[in-house]
């Protein structure tokens, strides 16, 4: 951190002081250890749920690793996320087979129903809505995966009932 930037960027409201205290402890454990960044990011994501830039700034400071490196690693690995994840992840397949058999309508309807664009999370953190490429189940298209459950032949109308089953 240098001259211009001093006060950390605004921490998102959903990141609580308790989470930050845990973050500090995790960093403390790995400070000065080579290769410590990835386990720290994993553990912090476990605590906070995601890795917003303000959290990365804090990790950079506490771990003594340049901020750009924290950002570089976070954006390199797909299992790190910079946006918050919901309790349930809804993945709608947009592969060719699903798309032509109504997958697009399913996605549109879910976007409207949950009132969020794809690849984001509802403010109550109940759902994260994502689109994915072919899941290899084209025979039963369109496919929607919620958490670990695969749902076959989902139509726009049934999709809403389907997700509402997940609290």
């Amino acid at each position, binding site marked *: 951190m240098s*001259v211009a930037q001093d006060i950390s960027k605004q921490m998102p409201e959903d990141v609580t002081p308790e989470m930050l205290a845990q973050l500090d402890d995790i960093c403390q454990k790995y400070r000065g250890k080579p290769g410590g960044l990835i386990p720290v990011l994993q553990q912090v994501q476990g605590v906070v749920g995601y890795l917003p830039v303000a959290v990365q700034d804090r990790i950079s400071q506490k771990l003594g690793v340049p*901020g750009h490196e924290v950002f570089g690693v976070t954006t390199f690995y797909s299992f790190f996320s910079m946006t918050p994840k919901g309790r349930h992840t809804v993945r709608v397949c947009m592969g060719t087979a699903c798309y032509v058999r109504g997958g697009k309508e399913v996605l549109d309807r879910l976007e409207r129903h949950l009132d969020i664009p794809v690849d984001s999370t509802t403010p109550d953190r109940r759902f994260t809505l994502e689109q994915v490429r072919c899941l290899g189940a084209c025979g039963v298209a369109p496919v929607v995966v919620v958490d670990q459950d695969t749902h076959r032949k989902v139509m726009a109308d049934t999709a809403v009932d389907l997700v509402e089953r997940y609290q």
Partner: protein
Amino acid sequence: MDTNQPTMSINGTMVTFTPGQTILEVAWERGIDIPTLCYLKDASPTGACRICLVEVKGARTLVASCAMPAGPGMEVTTDSPEVHRSRRLNIELLLASGNHNCLTCEKNGECKLQDLAYAYGIKEIRFQGQTQQYPKDDSNPLITRDFSRCILCGRCVQACNDLQVNRAIGYGYRGAASKIVTTGDRPYQESDCVFCGQCVEACPVGALTEKKAKGLARSWETKKVRTTCPYCGVGCQMWLHVKAGRIVKVTAVEDAQPNRGMLCVKGRFGYDFVHSPERLTTPLIKGEDGQHHPATWDQALDLVATRLKQIKKKHGANAIAGVSCARSINEDSYNMQKLFRAAIGTNNIDHCARVCHAPTVAGLAASFGSGAMTNSFADFDKARLIFVIGSNITEAHPVAGALVKRAVAKGAQLIVADPRFTGIAESAHIYVPIKVGSDVAFINGLMNVIISEGLQDQAYIDRCTTGYADLVAKVAEYPPSKAARIAGIGVDLLRETARKLASVKPAMLVYTLGITEHTCGVNNVRSTANLQMLLGNVGFECGGVNPLRGQNNVQGACDMGALPGDYPGYQKVENPAARHKFEEAWGVKMPRKNGLMIPQMFEGIEQGEIKALWVFGENLANTEPDIRHVEHCLKSVEFLICNDIFPTETTRFADVIFPAAAWSEDDGTFANSERRVQRVRKAVEPPGQAKPNWWIFREVAGRLGQEWKSKSGQDIWDKEVSELAPLFKGIKYSRLENDGLQWPCPDKNHPGTACMHKEGRFTCGLGNFEALDWTPPAEVPDKKYPLVLSTGRRLYHYHTRTQTGRCGGLNDLLGQETADISLADAAELGVADGDMVRVSSRRGQVMVKARVTRQVPKGLVWMAFHFREGNANWLTNPVYDPISLTAEYKACAVRVEKA
């Protein structure tokens, strides 16, 4: 051939190499060409571009020579059809990776990719170019990043991380989305970037370019002139790119001392002030109406000569005083002091070292026999332990700061003692937050621990120093508990610091104005000398006591004798032999007594004893403590003469203003902090009728009846300075073409002196310990003024901004003064970051924006003096060190209120 060295073969020829060298380095050393793109000297290789491929016998694939260490018995072929084909393919892929339309590219003519395409006979782009997903980043005032031209070679990342160690940029995202990013992929201005521009310098293609240079010149149209940076005392070597009488761009001289290819934001982007339309272009004389009116040179020079003669006749020569300039060339200062001594007949000549490093000149001379930095910048990144005290090195001397950070990256230990958690403190292994003005007590405490634990270098002390017994007795009065209490730190931290200091030999001590700008400045300096002698650290490479000089030529202005008690080369006015020597050389009798120092000059004006003041290039009205008082003096002096390149707050009061040639408009020399005399070259013509300062002094001397022979900077140096001062005897312009020479340089075969007091053989014989007591600052916080104000310099500006304020971009990066306060005080005062506050002291008050920062501890307010508005010197205390008369800029009492 050295039989101990391993050998390998390159293209069938046996060659030796040093273990650890890469194939590329071995080949280049032999003049064998291997093309590269991503390789960056002094950085760790990345092997990203695969242009440097070579064949190594026995290897399954081609090998990147920049990353592969040479091995004994290796057989390398640097060019073969296979190598050629691969390189060509890689070049084609890079060309296809973005938009490489050279016609519209700033880098056209100096692009490495373009050169390679040409060399490898690529006539058209075979692959379909990608459309780029990232728009051009043009959001900051200095650097343009065009992702469509980025070949992801990583040189900018290495330049930022490995060379400058700013750690602002790296790789982000992955695969086809890869991109060079800051933390959080924020715009540069909101990142850790400090705009040193090293990334721009490193970029081999047109992805990173200088915004200010855009569209001004094609690379083949410019003339390159080597010169020395006009800002801080590091003295970086740079190329001025000149087209049609204008500087269009500045780049670093690679492989040159002291900066080794680096520059900071001021050096790289702070050049355009010379072309400002606000330059003074004709002599000005104040009329009856109180306004300045243009005059001819003859009118102005005649007027000055006549008035000086009148005043001298009526009040004596000592009624005239002069302040020389620490930014101008040596030759200017030499001629000014010669004018005062030989033509006017007074030693009343001083310069702004008085307000910064006069305690260094006096203190180190008393301790070691010479008042200059003992070691060299070349030591900084080699040192194994560095103790930085009272130095905001990453902002005030950024390239030196980069070298310290490089040392740390290579494993050196770093201790930083400073009331503020400065940029360099972030890299420290031990950070000691000492209280403002507690230095002597703190260092006495360190020495107490060292001595009581037997960690001192007794052999060195016995052999090389004197005064040890008194020191031991004195520091016994500063047990850790007492010293730590005064310094406001924990006893354990004090002990730990002392032990760490003693654990590595030699250790290097670096200090700046946090040590000197106190009423006890000389004692602070002598304390640092005590400590380093106690540890046996003076006289060795990577050791010593190293004050970083603030202005580009403040060392030189001292060297030239712009001091009331010193002729050029520190020959003393009060030494009759020295005086006779100069009397003979200059053909006149000269006064035997030392002249006045700047604060005494002001006192003299107030008391009516000083009638004429000549201010050369200084903006005293903003830089001296207590602006109100200074302006009163400037107003009341009978005759005020100024040489300057711009109208300033000071020239407002002048009776005559001489328009001067600026840096880059005249040939001469600067001496940097490490005593290196370096060439400053003329690249463009001065505007209008502006003239070199040495010429102005010479003309006035002529009108006072003295004909001076020297008619150029080179004449002055070669025929006068180096002839009259033994320290510079061996330094001649002909020897300064490249990296200059470090004094002492006693004869023309002498290589210059990188490290003084070799092995503890001090210039004055034995090194002098001085037993010292701590004294508190003159003004300490009380009920009415409960906070301590300390002052200094910020990265993006320089002094009163007469130069940097007129450089495109720098003002955008920092456009106004702030008062930096701690989070704790801010909360107590109910002040948020960016709120306006009123800061007041017993001298005055200013309205300024608050900057709430964790850099500053509770109880401290920190400000600079770059801006007239909110200038800290409305508040600072005009109290002085009794020996050097340096003002206490670092401590006075203030009150902060929400405005």
